[in-house]
């Protein structure tokens, strides 16, 4: 994740589940900000208290998740690559659901994050298309990018303490 292209503004991300002692040491030596991420698959029993970003794979129990972690300032991430090849009905439903989730994020103090989920160049998404998706969901792109920048800045401050 890079906010404005400068080296010091690069934000590293580590999957919380894949952390071991050696990688923890590597991370502690790193000067960049590190955000820990986990995957939410719909089970509310899983604990995410130490996660900065939750990648949502299933919307089941999502409202309970909001209530459980209310005010923890967690980033809720949705991957476009997960839905890219779905049929029209599923896509339409996703656009509808995601708007509802976005409003819940606002209400429960979560940060809504939309990501391309790209692992190859084919999956990459241009800013124009990304902003079109935001617009189609019903999110002002300027507000989205501002909110994300503020959230990352807050995480940076918290990490430096």
């Amino acid at each position, binding site marked *: 994740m890079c906010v404005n292209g400068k080296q010091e503004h690069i934000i590293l991300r580590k999957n919380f589940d894949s952390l071991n002692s050696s990688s923890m040491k590597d991370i502690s030596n790193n000067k960049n900000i590190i955000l820990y991420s986990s995957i939410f698959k719909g089970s509310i029993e899983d604990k995410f208290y130490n996660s900065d970003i939750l990648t949502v794979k299933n919307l089941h129990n999502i409202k309970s998740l909001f209530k459980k972690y209310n005010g923890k300032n967690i980033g809720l991430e949705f991957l476009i690559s997960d839905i*890219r*090849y779905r049929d029209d009905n599923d896509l339409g439903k996703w656009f509808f659901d995601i708007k509802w989730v976005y409003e819940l994020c606002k209400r429960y103090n979560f940060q809504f994050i939309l990501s391309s989920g790209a692992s190859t*160049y*084919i999956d990459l998404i*241009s800013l124009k298309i990304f902003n*079109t998706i935001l617009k189609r969901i019903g999110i002002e792109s300027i507000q989205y990018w501002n909110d994300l920048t503020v959230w990352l800045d807050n995480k940076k401050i918290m990490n430096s303490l």
Partner: protein
Amino acid sequence: MILYKKKFRYACVYIKKNSSDIDSSNIVPSNFTRTLYKRLIGLNGSVDFYKSNIRIINVVNIPSGFVIIKCRLEYIDNVMLSLYFVNYPLMILPISGTIKQLKIRIQEFLIDKDFLMES
């Protein structure tokens, strides 16, 4: 009654070579066209589909694998969105108002194509 000149935009996509729909003569794959149109109708409705005046155009002297799409300026967002959600291994190149400019962009893309496609 004032008549406005319709403005169009050209979008170019590169479809990955190993896709079975690309043939050697660089004829636009009919399956791709059908899939794109179906997606555009599915996402935006048939009224917007016809309003967009979307066409896949044949341009001479473009390398194999590239498809050029023409549509109304007002509907370019819908078309780009549908292109992204089409179930094809493709890369969307920047849009342009002229075919001449698009050809320049294709040449620029070709410089890095091998690097991009290998990854």
